[in-house]
């Protein structure tokens, strides 16, 4: 029987939740790194017991931890994230230029191809790569050459929060940055191009042809259809059928198309999930009803998934890295809230139950299925 391991990053530590494949009886381990902010944990798809964690503190800075035994023990690895060359400047909130300054690691994305390679998405936005299991980090500076001087921080900072790897093309990667947009490399990270055509951000970006400056919140891809991308933007749920060259809106009948995460069903490339949030000013579900929305048509037609989720007086948020799916035959869906709940569905979202209810605010959720 398989084991499911859910890796949860929170404002005050990491938690590891495990269950057998029935996903009804969960064991909770943690807090690991108690009291520290854990922005993200993720395991290697090639070596699942190798897990990376981004640990940070407003007092003591950035730490990166690695476990080689599935999260039972951890050791700090490299934490020197030094921008290549003269870092230069980017656009500040008031339109002036501001020096690039490292603040924290938002995302650790282990490679699909090499168990010793891992990517780190950082704030101020840049992409780093380690080929020695996190001991040392090198920037892929070509990314910031893609109009980096025009990038600007979103309300949460100027963070590179999403890395998507094309499983069929080792040279192709996608990243997303708030508030710069989406970018693609076709040469393994040497050169990058903005892929934001079709995104509309009228209030923030009056120029409809702006190449960068879009506040992309998350991107998801199904591995069987690597040219099809789904995006939750600040406002709007978007889709691209040509690897990001052009995007079109698929918000359809959502009660709000503002939100943070987006995910694709493990076995149905046209089934996608979002969690609508009322607005950019009110970061909680519309009408106080916590609803995951599922589209089985790749967008536009959405159904509310409510069974087992609070439908009155719920005012939590679900952050961009806090939604994930497992790969079991009946696809599991998981999300964490800023209220400290982690909800799980073992039936593709038809019904939900909390695994835990009272963790610190949840920053990220990732899932592993172990044979």
């Amino acid at each position, binding site marked *: 029987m398989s084991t499911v391991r859910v890796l949860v990053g929170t404002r005050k530590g990491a938690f590891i939740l495990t269950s057998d494949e029935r996903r009804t009886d969960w064991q909770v381990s943690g807090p690991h790194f108690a*009291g520290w902010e854990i922005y993200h944990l993720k395991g290697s798809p090639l070596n699942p017991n190798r897990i990376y964690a981004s640990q940070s503190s*407003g*007092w*003591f*800075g950035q*730490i990166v931890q690695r476990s080689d035994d599935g999260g039972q023990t951890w050791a700090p690895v490299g934490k*020197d994230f*030094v921008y290549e060359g003269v870092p230069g400047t980017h656009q500040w909130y008031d339109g002036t230029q501001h020096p690039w300054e490292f603040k924290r690691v938002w995302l650790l994305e282990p490679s699909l191809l090499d168990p010793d390679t891992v990517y780190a998405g950082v704030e101020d936005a840049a992409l780093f790569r380690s080929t020695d299991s996190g001991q040392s980090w090198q920037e892929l500076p070509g990314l910031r050459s893609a109009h980096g001087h025009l990038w600007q921080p979103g309300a949460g900072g100027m963070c590179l929060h999403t890395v998507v790897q094309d499983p069929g093309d080792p040279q192709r990667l996608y990243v997303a940055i708030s508030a710069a947009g989406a970018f693609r490399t076709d040469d393994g990270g040497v050169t990058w191009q903005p892929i934001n055509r079709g995104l509309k951000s009228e209030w923030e970006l009056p120029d409809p042809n702006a190449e960068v400056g879009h506040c992309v919140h998350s991107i998801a891809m199904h591995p069987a259809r690597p040219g099809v991308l789904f995006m939750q933007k600040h406002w709007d749920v978007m889709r691209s059928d040509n690897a990001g060259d052009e995007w079109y809106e698929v918000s359809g009948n959502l009660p709000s198309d503002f939100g943070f995460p987006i995910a694709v069903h493990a076995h149905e490339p046209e089934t996608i999930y979002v969690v609508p949030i009322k607005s950019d000013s009110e970061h909680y579900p519309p009408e106080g009803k916590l609803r995951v929305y599922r589209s089985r048509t790749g967008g536009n037609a959405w159904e509310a998934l409510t069974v087992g989720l609070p439908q009155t007086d719920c005012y939590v948020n679900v952050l961009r890295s806090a939604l994930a799916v497992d790969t079991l035959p009946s696809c599991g869906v998981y999300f964490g809230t800023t209220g400290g709940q982690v909800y799980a569905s073992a039936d593709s979202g038809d019904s939900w139950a909390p695994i835990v209810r009272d963790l610190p605010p949840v920053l990220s959720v990732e899932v592993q299925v172990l044979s």
Partner: protein
Amino acid sequence: MIRVVLPHHLRTLAGVRKEVELEVAEPVTQAALLDALEARYPALRGTIRDSVSGQRCSLVRFFACGQDWSHEPADAPLPAAVAAGAEPFMVVGAMAGG
């Protein structure tokens, strides 16, 4: 031996339970003390001072013999009582928040 008191989170990170004792060559300065601390506990590198510039992290403070040493030059000799091990050098996380 020089005695160093670390804040809770750095004790956890370094894997120590109480104050740390270090050999530091004369003259005992803040910089020499932190060099020795980071050499013994590499996980602490970058958590107290910037690993490139050496500048103290903005929400970290240093105290010794009842005095705030946070703004003293890194190469200034520390008090004789610290150098003799009679008093600890204290690394403190600044009060912040509401």
